[in-house]
C-alpha cells in the first residue's frame, strides 16, 4: 500500500453503452474483484447480480409493514367498538367484522407502502449527502448517458496500475482515479 493508494477511493472506468459496462462488471467479478460498484442512468438487468449483489430484502419489509398495518387497523376498530366504547349502532352487533374490513385493508396497504419506501432508502444508505464518486468530473453524465464501473481501493486485490490496466483491458473509453 502506497501513500497514493490511501489518498484515493478507487479507479473509475467509463463505458459508452450498457452492454460494455455489463461485460466489464462480469469480467471484474470473474477476476476476483469484489469491492466495486457500477453506475448507470437506468437499471441494467443482471448488473447487480454480476457484481455479486443479488439478495432481495425489500419484499420482507413490505410484507412486515402490510401485516402490521392490517393488525393495527382491525385492532383499533375492535378495541374501539367492542372494548373501549361499545355503542348500539342501528342494532348491529358490536363486532360487525364485515364492516371493519375496508379500514383494515387500507391500513395494511399504507404500512406496506411505507415498508417498501423506507427499506429502499435504508438498504441504499440514502439520503447520503457526500460520495467520493461525485469528485469525478465526467461522473455527472452517470445520470444521463454515461456508464461507469468503479473498483474501490479497499478491495484486497486493488493495485493502482494493475487494476487500471485490467479495466482498460475491458474496453473502457477512459479510466480515472477517484479521490476519497
Amino acid at each position, binding site marked *: 500500500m502506497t501513500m497514493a493508494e490511501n489518498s484515493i477511493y478507487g479507479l473509475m472506468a467509463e463505458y459508452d*453503452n450498457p452492454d460494455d459496462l455489463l461485460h466489464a462488471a462480469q469480467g471484474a467479478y470473474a477476476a476476483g474483484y469484489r469491492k466495486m460498484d457500477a453506475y448507470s442512468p437506468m437499471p441494467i438487468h443482471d448488473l*447487480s447480480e454480476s457484481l455479486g449483489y443479488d439478495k432481495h430484502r425489500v419484499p420482507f419489509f413490505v410484507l412486515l409493514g402490510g401485516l402490521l398495518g392490517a393488525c393495527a387497523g382491525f385492532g383499533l376498530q375492535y378495541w374501539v367498538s367492542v372494548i373501549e366504547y361499545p355503542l348500539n349502532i*342501528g342494532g348491529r352487533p358490536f363486532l360487525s367484522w364485515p364492516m371493519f374490513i*375496508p379500514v383494515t385493508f387500507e391500513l395494511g396497504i399504507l404500512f406496506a*407502502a*411505507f415498508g417498501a419506501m423506507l427499506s429502499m432508502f435504508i438498504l441504499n444508505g440514502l439520503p447520503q449527502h457526500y460520495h467520493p464518486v461525485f469528485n469525478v468530473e465526467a461522473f455527472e453524465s452517470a445520470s444521463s448517458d454515461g456508464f461507469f464501473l468503479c473498483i474501490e481501493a479497499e478491495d484486497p486485490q486493488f493495485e493502482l496500475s494493475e487494476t487500471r490496466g485490467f479495466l482498460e483491458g475491458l474496453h473502457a473509453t477512459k479510466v480515472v482515479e477517484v479521490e476519497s
Partner: protein
Amino acid sequence: MASPAPIQEDPTAPAPVLGPGQTYTTITQKISSIITSRTTVGWIVAVALALGLMQCFLLGVTWLLIKGVGIWGLNIPVGWGWAIINFVWWIGIGHAGTLISAILLLMRQDWRNSINRFAEAMTIFAVICAMQFPLFHTGRPWVAAYWLLPYPNSMGVWPQFRSPLIWDVFAVSTYFTVSLLFWYLGLIPDFATLRDKAKKKISRMIYGVLAVGWRGSAKHWHNYEMASLLLAGISTPLVLSVHSIVSFDFSVGLVPGWHATIFPPYFVAGAVFAGFAMVLTLGLPIRAIYGLHDFITDRHLNNMSKVMLATGLVVAYGYGMEQFFAWYSASPYEGYMMQNRMHGPYQFEYWSLILCNVIVPQFLWIKSVRLNPYALFVVSMFINVGMWLERFMIVVTSLHRDYMPSSWDMYHSTLGDWLLYAGTIGIFLLGMFLFIRVMPVINMVEIRLLVPRKGHGKKPDHDASTEVSAE
C-alpha cells in the same frame, strides 16, 4: 457517444412507442429542456388563469365558512349535492394515473413509460381537489377534522367504523399518501439527472436535496426496482379498493338508485374511463405545445382510446344493469327511480349522460378517430362531462325522490356550488402547470429503457442480459 443501431422497419410490428433516432443523450436533453428552457409567456398566462380560477375556491370557502352549507342548493331530501358529486368526479379522474403507473407496469406495457409520470401528477392533484369536498361539505371543517380522525381523547369517543364515510377517510388518505410515495420514488433518479444538468447553483441545490444523493449505482437500482415493483403491486389493489369504497358511500345506503351490488366494478371502470379522458384532455395540448410527439406517439393515443372504449363499455353495461335490476327486483321504489331518471324532472341530465358516456365513445371503434388528436380531444371532453353527469344522476336524481312522496323535492344548484367546483379546477390546473415547469413531464429513466440496444433493435431492455451472457 455511440449512436444506436438503426431500427429496421417491420410492417407487422405496432407503431413504435419511441420516435426514431432518439439516444440517451437526446432523450435527456429533450425532456429536461422543458424545465431548463426559459419561461414562456404562454405558461405565465396559463398560470395566471389558473390562479384566477382558484380565487373562486377561496371566495366560495370563505362564504361557506361564514354562512354554512345553506349557501348550496341542498335540502331535505337532497342532503348531498355538488360537493359529493365533485368529490367522486375528482377521485375518479385520479385513478387513471395509478392505473397507468401500477397496473400497466405489472403488465409490462412499455408504452406507458412516457405518460405515467404525468398521469401520476394528475392523480396527485386530482386527489388534492377531491379531498377539499369531504373536508368542506359539512360547512364546519374544524369539527369534521376534529371528530373524524381516530385519536385518544378525554371523552373516550371514537369514529363510528361502520360508516362508509370513515372508510372514505382511510381510503382516500391512504391513496393520496401511497400515490405520493410512488411518484416521488419514480422522480428520484430524474432529480439526480436534473441535479447534474442544473446550471444555476440554487437549482442544483434544490434538485440535489430532492435526489437524496442518488448516484445510480447497481445496488441502488437493484433495491429501487424491487421497491417500485412492489409499490406497483400494492397500488393495484389499492386503486381498485378506493373507488369501490367510494361506491360504498352509495351502495351501503338504502336509497333506490344507490343500493346496488354492481356499484364497485361499475365505479372503478367509470374512474378509469374518466381518468384516461382527463389524461388525453391534458396530454394532447402538452404534447402539441412542447412537441413531445416522439414520446407520446400515435401508439399511445391508440392504446388509450382502446382502454377508454373498453371501460366505457363496462360503464354502459353498468347503466344497463341498473335498468335490469329496476325491472327484475320488482321493487316499486327501484322501478319508480328508473322511470324518474328517464322521464322525471332530471331527464335532460340522464339523456345527456347517455349521449356523453355511451354514444360518443362508440366513435373510438374507428381507427382514424383514435389516431386523430382533435377528434380524441373532443371525445375526451364529452367523457369528462358525462362522468360528472353520471355522479349527478346517482347523487341528486336518486335522492330527490326516494321513499316518501311527501318529502320529494328538487335540487337547484347555486352560485356557492359553482364557486367551489370552478375553484378546484383552478387548483388542479395550477398544480399541473407548476409541475410541468419544475419536474420532468416524462420519466427519463424509463424512456432510456426504450432505447434500442446493440444487436437487438426493437426489443425492450428486459431480456437483454441473455444476449450479453451468451457472448
